[in-house]
Structures are given as C-alpha cells and as structure tokens.
C-alpha cells in the first residue's frame, strides 16, 4: 500500500548565520508542494535542531548555511542525529558551501547539498524521491 502521508520536514538555520532568504523561500516551496514544514527560526545550535527534529518527528532535516561553518555544523548534526537514533532521517543542506567540501559532507551523512543556482523544483523532487525510498526501506 503506498504511503502517502504528507512529508514532514524540519528546515533550519544553524549557527550564528542570519541569512534566511533562501531557507524561507525553500520552506514556502515545500509547503506549497504539500509538505508539512517546521521552520526552526534562526541561530539554532546543532543540539536545538536535533531536539526539534526529534520532537516534531520529521523525516528530513534541511539546514541552510552561508557562514563557512558547515564543516563544523554538519558533522556535529550528523553525530547528534546518530546519538538520538535519527540516522534514518534525511539530512540535506544548502547555502554557500564550496564544491570541494561536498564529498566530506556526504561522508558524514549529508544526503544532498544544494548549491547556488538550484531550483525549488529540484529540492522538492529530491525530497519526494528520498523520502519514498526511505519509507520503502522501512517496510517489512
């Protein structure tokens, strides 16, 4: 039986970076695409992001970072997600992230990094596909 629950996503700004144009546009796009979006607001610590993800029982966490702190924040997030038993939650991100850092991020469990120039459609389609796969795996 196809699982057509709406996808629930946490969209977050982690660290001190306050540039929220992109994350808010993404949040609106996901909402317009029928997903249930929880936006954390700004200045979240990795701990706060993971706590919110746990409380809201989301299937995916999207993190926006433009400050250069991604190599600190994403690994910490991945670590905390593992600790809290959220390894099956899809972690994705976007912002100003150098191309050469992406393999390192993928290694710690970031499923996808959306660089400048990504379209909203791409992000929606990625999530739909990734969540579908995840739900498929979850079924016995």
């Amino acid at each position, binding site marked *: 039986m196809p699982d057509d629950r709406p996808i629930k996503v946490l969209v977050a700004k982690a660290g001190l970076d*306050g540039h*929220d144009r992109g994350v808010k546009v993404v949040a609106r796009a996901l909402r317009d695409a029928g997903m249930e979006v929880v936006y954390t607001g700004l200045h979240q610590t990795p701990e706060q992001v993971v706590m919110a993800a746990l409380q809201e029982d989301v299937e995916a966490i999207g993190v926006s970072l433009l*400050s*250069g*702190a991604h190599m600190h924040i994403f690994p910490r997030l991945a670590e905390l997600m593992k600790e809290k038993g959220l390894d099956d939650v899809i972690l994705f991100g976007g912002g100003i992230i*150098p191309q050469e850092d992406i393999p390192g991020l993928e290694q710690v469990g970031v499923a996808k990094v959306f660089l*400048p120039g990504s379209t909203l459609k791409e992000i929606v389609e990625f999530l739909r596909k990734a969540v579908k796969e995840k739900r498929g795996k979850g079924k016995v």
Partner: protein
Amino acid sequence: MAKAKPQAPAERRAGGDRNGDTPRNGANGAVADAQARWERETYRPAANGTPERQADFRTLSGLPLKAIYTPDDVREAGFDWLGHPGEFPFTRGVYPTMYRGRLWTIRQVAGYGTAEDTNHRFRYLLDQGETGLSVTFDMPTLMGYDSDHARSKGEVGLGGVAIDAARDMYQLYEGLPLDKLTASLTINCPAAVILAFYLDAAQRMGFPWSVLGGTVQNDILKEFHAQNEWAFPPAPSLSLVVDQVEFCTQQVPRWNTISISGYHMREAGATAVQELAYTLLDGLTYVQACVDRGLEVDAFAPRFSFFFDIHNDFFEEIAKLRAARRIWAREMQRRFHPKNEKSLLMRCHCQTAGVSLLAQQPMNNIARVALQALAAVLGGAQSLHTNGFDETYALPTEETAQLAVRTQQIIAHESGVANVIDPVGGSYFLEALTDEMEAAAYQEFAIIEGMGGMLAAIESGYVRQRIGDSAMRFQKEVDSGKRVQVGLNQFVEGPAPRLETHEFDLQAEVRANERLTELRRTRDHAAWKRTRSELQQAARRGRNLMPHILDCAAAQATEGEIMDALREVHGEYDAPPLY
C-alpha cells in the same frame, strides 16, 4: 502575462496627469500630437510586423515601462521644478559640485581572521587606491559573542574579523591615520560596544575624538526586518541606538551615527520600491526617537547617513537614489522643520548587489558589478563598495578586491560620467521613473504608518513578510526562466572552473582564543567587575550607556561580556519563526 495594450499617446503614471486629455508639456498639445503621429505611422506598423520581445515590460520591482518616454511624461514643464544640485529637494545631488568637486569615496568593506589580518588587507586596499575604510566582523562579533563562546565554535574569523576587546581594535587600525581616513564600522546590535572600542583605540593612538570621521552602521530596525543580527528586544535596542547618537553628537561631532540601510532588506528579497520606502521610514523612525529623547534635530540629523543596494535594473537604481534624496528632504522638512539645511541631506554609501552575482560563470560578475557601480555613480552616491567576482564563493582575494577597486577607478577617470553633475537628469524616462518610485514609496508609507509605524510593523512581521513575498516571487521567476540570469538559466555552460578563492583560516579561532585567555588573565578584574555593575545599574535606570560602555572598554571588558551584562538586564529577543 498581461496582454499588450495599445497605449494612448498621453497616458500617464502616478505623479502625472491621469486623464490623458491635457498634456503637461508642449504648447497646444504639440508633444502629444507628435507622439501620436509617430505611434500611428511608425511604431505600431513596426511592432505589428515584428512583435516586441515581451507583451509587457517592467522594471525589476514591477513598475510598468512604456516603449518610449516624452516630455509629457515629465511631471512639469520648464526646468525649475526639478531643482538644482545642493539645493532642496536635492534630486540632482546633495552637493553643489558633486563629483566635479570631489569624487565619491572608494570604500571597500573588508574583514577576516584576526585584527592583524584585516589591518594587512586595509593597507593593501589603501595601496590600490581606496579612499575610505570599512570593516565587517565575523558572526560571533556581529552577534555580540566572544570568540571562545560555545556558539562561536567554528565561526571565528570566517565572515569577517574577530574582535573581542578594545585592544583588538587598536591592532586593527594600527599605524593608520584615523585623522585623515574615515572608517566605517559594519556593526549593529553590539554597535555601541564596537564604537566604544574604536574610540578607546583611537584615543590610545593619539587621535582626539573631535578629529575622527567615520560611520557606525548602528541600524537595528533593519535587523528586525531582514539581517537578523539582534540581541535585545526592539525597545532597548532602539534606546541604545539613540544613546550613540546622543553621545557622538556631543563628543564625536564628525561621526555618522547611523547608516540607515536598505542594502540588507534588498538582499533579503525586497524590491527597489520596498527598499526605498522601508529605508526612509526607518530613518524617520530614528529621527523621531532622537527627537523624543530631547535632541535637537539639527544637532544630529546632519550626521545620519544611508546605505543602499545597487542591483541590476540600471535606471531603476538611479531613479531610486534620486527619489530617496527628494523624499528624505521633503519629509524631514515637513515633519521636523530643521533650520540647518544639512539636516535634509540623504547622503549615501552604496554597495553593488551581492545577491545578483552568480556562481555560474563567475567572471560574468565583473560585468554586472561594473554596470551596477555605474548606476551608483549616475545616481549620485557619496561612497561605493564594489563586490569581487568571487562573491558567491568566498570573501574576496587580493586580486578580486583589486579588480573591484579598478572598476570604480575606471568609471571615475576614464568614462567621463563624473565630469558632469547629474548627467542623466532630464531624461524623460528617468524623471518619470523617479516620480513613479517616489509615488510607489509613498503608498508603502501610507500602509505602514496606517498600521502604527515601523515599530508596529516589526511586531506584526509586516515588513519581513512582504520582503519574503518578494523573494519568493523572484525565485519563481528565475526557476521558470521568466527572469533571465545569464549563465544560470540561459547561456549555460558546463561546470564552473575551479577558482582560487580566499582561504578560510581555521586557526584564527585558536589565535583569538589565546588572546582572550591572556586578556582575562592579565586585566584588573576588580575594575571590570566595578564597571560591569555600573553599566547594569545605568541600563536599569535608562541612562545613556555610552560612557559606561567606554569605562568597561577601558577596563578590558570583552564584547561578549559587555553584551551579556546587557542581556541580563534587557533580555534576549526571540523572533517568531515566520516564513
């Protein structure tokens, strides 16, 4: 998309004659007749034969564009209504001689690593010919946290320079002639602290405060609208802004106490019209707050300055600056009746739009920045920052920063545009567009003042949400291809070449933390404790905090410590997570 409408020859826009019957210009309707004849005999046949590229042409902010503009589109006949440079309402320029007398300041914002690193970049930029200093700080400093705060981990010295104490400001400006160079400090919620550090450092360097010229951004309202660098709730934040105005008015008379900014709202998605309206309203809100404090408008208003974004729509940006000058002069006159004409001047710094630059085919950004810089100059900016073409990748390297400076120098010395004052003034299109933007801004004024003003708009989130709406609209236009972005959705190539970009120095955090440890170990702890207690007492009693913050700075308090002391009194702002 709207269908093409045949345009009546004398069709008007807001600010002009709407009935279309009676032309404003041209004796006996001669202009209207000539235009009608051209449309009938020449334009319509051509447009019918080869349809125009779009059914509907608009500026970037959505204002409709006619095919061509005539004297009838200019609000009044004759010449006097437009005014003159250096005279009310300053549409044509704030100063009588403008760039013929003095070119705009080349003021490139810089900041990374620790103070010595940025001092090095300052010297480099001065060697390249920049004429004013500007610094930006790392996220911890911008948010009022020390480099060793838990929240600062991984963020120190990345987006700007790490400044923790007054001695860091001393190192930042070491060896530079602060009596001859103006310095801009891009700082907001901890502006009072960083300003105090600057004043403390300048004093130690032997410069009396009376000779110091510069600017502290200190524009907290736009933080609540867009940039999100807040600490305390709006009321105590605004009070601290006024503290700095009051203090500098008496003690640092050449200092620009606020840089009332549209740039950040624009970067967050605001249209040019929104940027114009919200920036000027923020400015009027500050003037009112200072008047409410009991300050004389002529004592402080001459030292209010502005900061605008310069985006891609060339003529819209020029018109925006001209409309801004006119609106500010008129509203200051009408609302506050200053006696000193300097209180009416909308002097501005401009920065080319970071958000307009693309990661794809980054060298294209050189062309974008050049055009934007030209618009700023034709718009009459007092100082200008041009972005590096690697803006979407990292902070500028020396090479990209140099090229950005050269761009301004080429405009200044080779293009000829600086040799005539307001050279595009009188263009039928430009004057019509200036009028339209002015009218559109006034519509926004009416909406926001109708809801109780900017502080009410912050509380309701009105400005934030309108900016977010514009951002969403823009993204959809780009994604659909309706809004062309060269190299991104048209004229696309393969993957971008690997650029040599600025290397982020992850060791800056280590160095900064070592300095902090040393500072805390060696300072007079009792002095800090005393000044901290006095600061908090003054904050609770609603006193001007600047003298107390200066005392803390002299006692080697850190920025984070001073901000924490104030957080204890004022509380921390928690914005509702609207999107």
